[in-house]
């Protein structure tokens, strides 16, 4: 199957602005899905609200466009009902880390087998360029006309502290690597977080004099610093030479760790013993009833 066979072509061209990086992420995701040979009927995508959330309207899968920040919670329910399905959740930075921050850290903690793609463009694009939890300190947005006064979240650090078992970062410049990472993330049997730095030339780029889409992607290219290989415990070493790059962005797979997956652990630790005990107790009371 070709990558475009996973598209709902009748809705193309998509709504994203010229140069928006979200389309590059969608393409990388569909390449990963194609490479894995997934059946469309086995894929569920859940999204929240925002530019990122619009991705699934174009993907020929079971798609659920939900509430701002809540996609991971909806996806959790889907996965509990049908653990056999492949669940992918595209999210924006505000969607994942501000309004949905609580669901994000708890989904990571639970380690349910799904893939969260944090499409980080450092702004709220759909509403017109307000500052987000990943807008850099001092950067501008329509609600930060004097610059923001807070530190941004580091998605990788946050996911790591919350316990996600697969964590990676890449950028829209690194499209080929992104497809590889996404395939790896989907295959990983646990909660995977892939942060993709993506350009919003329309709002974030313009407000912060970052240039057009090409210049923003060149920025990703020039600042990217690959992390080291994973060690035996599934953790990568990040070594950054501050002299080499101004404002370095570590990219690559930071963590890939096999931990108990929630649905699986719940089945083994809770459902199987409880069902067995209930069946034994029913049999015992039936036998006692027969003796009376």
């Amino acid at each position, binding site marked *: 199957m070709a990558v475009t066979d996973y598209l709902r072509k009748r*809705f193309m061209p998509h709504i994203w602005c010229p140069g928006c990086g979200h389309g590059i992420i969608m393409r990388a995701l569909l390449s990963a899905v194609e490479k894995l040979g997934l059946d*469309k*009927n*086995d894929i*569920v995508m*859940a999204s929240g609200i925002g530019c990122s959330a619009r991705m*699934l*309207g174009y993907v*020929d*899968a*079971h*798609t*659920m*466009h*939900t*509430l701002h920040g*809540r996609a991971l*919670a*909806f*996806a*959790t*329910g*889907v*996965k*509990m*009902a*049908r653990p*056999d*399905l492949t669940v992918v959740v595209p999210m924006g930075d505000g969607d994942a880390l501000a309004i949905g921050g*609580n*669901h994000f*850290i*708890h989904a990571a903690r639970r380690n349910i087998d799904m893939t969260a793609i944090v499409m980080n463009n450092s702004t709220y694009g759909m509403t017109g360029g307000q500052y987000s939890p990943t807008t850099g300190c001092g950067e501008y947005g329509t609600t930060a006309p004097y610059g923001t006064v807070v530190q941004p979240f580091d998605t990788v650090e946050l996911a790591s502290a919350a316990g996600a078992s697969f964590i990676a970062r890449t950028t829209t410049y690194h499209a080929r690597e992104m497809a590889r990472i996404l395939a790896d993330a989907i295959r990983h049997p646990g909660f995977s977080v892939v942060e993709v730095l993506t350009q919003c030339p329309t709002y974030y780029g313009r407000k912060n004099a970052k240039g057009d889409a090409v210049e923003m992607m060149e920025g990703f290219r020039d600042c990217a610093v690959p992390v080291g290989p994973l060690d035996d415990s599934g953790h990568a070493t990040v070594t950054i030479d501050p002299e080499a790059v101004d404002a370095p962005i570590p990219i690559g797979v930071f963590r890939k760790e096999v931990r108990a997956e929630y649905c699986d652990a*719940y089945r083994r630790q*809770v*459902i199987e*013993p*409880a*069902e067995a*005990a*209930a069946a034994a*107790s*029913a049999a015992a*009371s*039936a036998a006692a*009833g027969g003796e009376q």
Partner: protein
Amino acid sequence: MSTAGQTERSRVQFLQGNEVCAEAALYAGMRYFAGYPITPSTEIAERLAERLPQVGGSFMQMEDEIGSICAVIGASLAGTKSMTATSGPGFSLMQEAIGYAVMAEIPCVIVDVQRGGPSTGLPTHASQGDVMQVRYGTHGDHSIVCLTASNHQDLFGIVVDAFNFSEVFRTPAVVLIDEVVGHMREAVRVPEPGELDLTERLLTDVPRDVDYHPYAPREDDRLPMSNFGGVHRYNVTGLVHDMWGFPSEKPKIVNDLIHHLYLKLENRKQMLTRWREWSLDDAEIVLISYGSSARSARHIMENRRSVGVPIGMIELQTLWPFPSEMIRTKCRHAEYIVVVEMNMGQIVHEVKRAVDRPERVFLSNRVDGEMITPTDIKHLIRVIQGKGV
């Protein structure tokens, strides 16, 4: 455990109302519960944490009530009957997602065990202050199903009804009880399997690879569903959508959808209305109540009857959509109607809207966290009758 082999005597259990909600949900086939601890509903979660895995289901404690209702909707969309339970503050948090379930037409059941409000209010005391929130809590025009009960035997059937209605009409259905019913212990006979009717999801018979219209209602307003993971891939959204589930802003599509969401329930009150009634034939005074208040109302109704007062009573079990036709018909000959509820007046306004002479409708209420007593109601009746307190 309730199994087919049980003796009739062992079917009778001494349960809390909250435990009845849990057992009835299991009976209805609920196999996924997501919730967050909150007084006075927590026993529902506790019992299901133990009971659900025994029948192969899953219990999940979420990070908050918002996550709980969202997970419940997701599980239902993937084909599992699902439920959450909460109380006022948690119910407030759930409102946006309840609207999503209304808009996307995904069946689910929410139990709200009411406590005093607003805000944190009175966590361990009874109130009936959430009646209007069930109806209008989420934004936008819609209708919703809300059922309640005053005793545990009725509650069992009402919870099963809530699941059935949620499947038939693809709507969130709210079981609205109060702290007294939730925490009170009473004998309840757990019905045998098959004794109560269960409505399973109406699935589409459109074959694979044939265009399926997930949001094209049939003539009876029902929408045959295809669960996620099935052979039909479609879009589900909280946006106004066309028959394929894709966003649309065309005025005709918007208009048709809003009418459908409203009328699929409002036009079917006959099927949705559950109630009990006593001594209405010659009643000059009709008490209307629901939930734990109805226990006091019934007590004073029987007490006054025994001394010759022509008094009758209606106990509402369906609060929404409001059974206005039934109320108008039953109260046609009443001189006075007294609505008994634990709030500043919520159902009383619906009754006034329903009857021919609203000036005959009075309110007997308490909002101090204590139950309305039969004496409270008796005093009001005496005042109405001009006999003083």
